[in-house]
């Protein structure tokens, strides 16, 4: 652990001012930061602690009564305990429950998971499948970016240095949701592959984590499912559509096989009665 230069913000406006003037990197739960510091791979040394910004820790619905708005500092524990998340986005509750252990669930935040941008981030497939929108704010103003356009590459996002991720918005979802994580063991594991899926009768959506440099949607497979093709046909499309990675945790061959199996599992488990 090396010396760090840390400031703490007491309001979002103060945080944005400090970010503009001092170019600090915001941190909240610091669950990824400690790992990077320990491995000597922590690049930013000037940090801004935003953990105490309560206004970013709210969960509720927008004025339209439909859109679910999750504040960036909501922890996994908050998500699991939130009635509105349980009701509207149950696949996020499942994903949150599978992140790390209780300590990580109490400290890790949804904003951190999104901005850290690890392709193995457990909540990312959920937001990808949910067609979520991230809300970015700076002193220059606020903008909304579709979640599926948020990543520019491996651990790269379109966020600007002076922007803070404020919230993630999810439109209301039609159809059954599912989430499945295949980790290296039963708990406290990093994903080898994760899938979030929505059985929207008109527009089924499938997203995978840990398959590629970023979380991915599989539009060709979704189209095959939407057009009423059989699951065997959709599985064949998926097999051609994805090109998984090999790494120390798993193999491309396994990931491809299991991705197809998970699709089959989802389709079978959510089949109309």
């Amino acid at each position, binding site marked *: 652990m090396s010396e760090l230069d840390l400031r703490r913000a007491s309001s979002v406006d103060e945080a944005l001012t400090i970010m503009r003037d001092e170019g600090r990197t915001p941190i909240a739960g610091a669950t990824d930061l400690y790992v990077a510091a320990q491995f000597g791979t922590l690049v930013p040394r000037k940090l801004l602690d935003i953990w105490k910004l309560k206004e970013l820790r709210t969960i509720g619905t927008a004025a339209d009564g439909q859109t679910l708005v999750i504040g960036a500092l909501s922890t996994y524990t908050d998500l699991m305990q939130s009635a509105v998340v349980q009701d509207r986005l149950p696949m996020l509750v499942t994903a949150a429950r599978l992140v790390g252990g209780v300590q990580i669930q109490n400290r890790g935040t949804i904003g951190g998971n999104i901005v850290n941008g690890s392709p193995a981030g457990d909540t990312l497939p959920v937001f990808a499948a949910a067609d979520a929108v991230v809300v970015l704010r700076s002193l220059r103003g606020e903008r909304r970016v579709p979640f599926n356009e948020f990543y520019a590459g491996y651990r790269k996002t379109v966020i600007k240095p002076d922007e803070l991720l404020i919230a993630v918005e999810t439109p209301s979802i039609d159809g059954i949701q599912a989430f499945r994580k295949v980790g290296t063991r039963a708990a406290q594991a990093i994903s080898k592959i994760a899938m979030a899926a929505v059985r929207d009768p008109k527009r089924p959506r499938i997203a995978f984590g840990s398959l590629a440099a970023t979380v991915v949607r599989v539009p060709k497979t979704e189209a095959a499912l939407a057009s009423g093709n059989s699951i065997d046909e959709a599985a064949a499309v998926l097999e051609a559509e994805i090109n998984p990675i090999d790494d120390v945790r798993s193999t491309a061959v*396994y990931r491809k*096989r299991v991705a197809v199996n998970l699709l*089959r599992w989802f389709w079978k488990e959510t089949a109309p009665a």
Partner: protein
Amino acid sequence: MKAIGKSVSRKDGIGKATGGAKYADDITFPGMIHGRTIRSTIPCGRVKSIKYDFDTTGFTICDYRDVPSKNIVDLIEKDQPFLVETEVKHMAEPIVLLAHEDKEKLHAAKVIIEYEEETPVFDPEKSTLSFKDIDIIKGDVAKALASADVIVEGTYRTGHQEHVYIETNGLIAVPEEGGYALYGSLQCPFYVIKALRCLMGSAHPNIRVIQTETGGGFGGKEEYPSMIAGHALMLAHKSGRPVKIIYDRVEDMIATTKRHPAIVKHRTGLKKDGTLVAMDIEVILDGGAYVTLTPTVLSRGCIHAAGPYRCDNVRIRGHGMFTNTPPNGAFRGFGAPQTEFAVEVHMERIAEQLKLDPVELRRKNALRAGDLTATGQTLREDTSALMVLDEAVRRTDFSRKRKEYKGTNRAIGLALFFHGAGFTGAGERNLKSKARIDLTETGVRIAVGSTEIGQGTRTMHAQIVTEALGIPYETVEVAQPDTSRVADSGPTVASRTCMVVGKILEECAEEMKEKLGGMSPADYFKKNGPLSIERMYEPPDWIIWDDKTYLGDAYATYGWGCDVIELELDPYTFEVKPIKMTAVQEFGRPIHPALARGQIEGGTAQGLGYALLENVVMRNGVMANAQLTNYVIPTTLDMPELDIVMMENPYPGGPFGAKGLGELPMDGPGPAVVNALRQLGCDVREIPATPEHIASCPKMNGSYA
């Protein structure tokens, strides 16, 4: 006082539960500086140049030229240097040592090493250098194979395994009046002192080694601490200051020893009814770049390679091969988990091929008292293969479940195994271990070099002395192992700490009891002053062993076990979920039932990790997943329900009938799991049986779902 067979409170319990116990990294000395090891970044080649690319002010720097006497880590062979001179034989090999009082500066220091690279050897089957060859011959295998009704062949593989003791390696060297003291996390203080004497030479006779509280070892702190102690001592010698070296997890994983990977080939002749007539076995171990403990690991592996079975014609050939990888070393089981995995999976394949009931096949061939082992040892009454097999099969309702689960994604599998206790062959006789008991003002103090590494040494030794002396448990102290103060009771390895060292302590206590003549220790001390009883181990006189032919009484006794696992295979992800493990084990008699149960539970967990999860990914001769995030061991959620059964069959040569226990539980889970997977159509012949590996099995093609 009666103490044997009771789960008395641990001698180290309060300290560990309250956080009061001091581990190496908790200890500081005035003026102490921190040490760091600069390691090779190539697997094979020569050092061309070393450049110190930092301001060296305030740093202590050592290379091989700073070795006071011999640049050799003295173990079985004298081939491994403390620091590379020119030739690099593996990745992460120590080349240069740095020390500084400021850890930040120490870790920022950049050393640039230029190499001339050579082509490394990573495949033990392609290696042309063998550290050790073994050839055990019983009967005439060729002739017996020719007359066999059936011949079954197979090749089985096991991978590296990392110990993952909670406390990483750490040593502190401290200059003191007239010499040096070494404090650290280690299993064998007298191994360390031997290595340090060789390093420092006769000009520095006053060195002592003190074991600090140690957070686990599993064999991983048997030999490597000698290396770290040498490094700390060189830096302390040069700087004149105390030097602490603590490895972080990554360094510990890439640089220190692992379990030897193995390739085991079986060719077995049988009668139609399943009677074994010939076993031809070849064992190849990947030794890594230096000899270290490979010959003895290979030895134990070969002796256990035929499994707990009787067969008149056996040939076991073993080779411990050189590769350009960090040396593999001691790990709970010491070669036996590898070879017993092979023979038990092979037995299951034999049952399948001959369409025999797997239990009946084992029952027919299991070793009984009076039978001859592969090395020609006549087994005695304390032989329990059938007893543990029958109990395990009975209590799990094995045969019924085997049928009932057919066609489902659930399966049940078993493994029968044994484990020799204590050093192999003449090892204990040559070791001449000693133990001592000193009288104190309040009771007695045990003074042995055996180390408490979490397994309960202090408590178990104190129970033996308590019972033999008939004094209160609370009045028995256990001295911290300090080579200048305790008797050399040999290394804390090979399941020998209870059976061998415990036995010497029992005899010391009996002799002391006689001397006390009915007085309490405190009264005797007040009246007569100090009294010490030291005795040397006498192995049973019937043990005869020939190190040249590898024939004779390999071990004074064996522990016996039968593991039965029930598991489920996820048809979509190929993940294996262990549901229930029944571990029936006979190890003489438990001295401390709770600790003994803990050994079986822990060993079973470690064995399940070995079977299913623990996958050391080697790239360019070094562990590529050297983090606990990517090298995973079982959590409680990965563990099945455990039914632990401790059966008794006392060994007359052990304290109160006890045999060795520590390693036995490691031998069974691997083959039990793989034998269950076979019931699901997965022809697995290697571990770890990761989901990736299971998915690649021939019958798993296409979607299983």
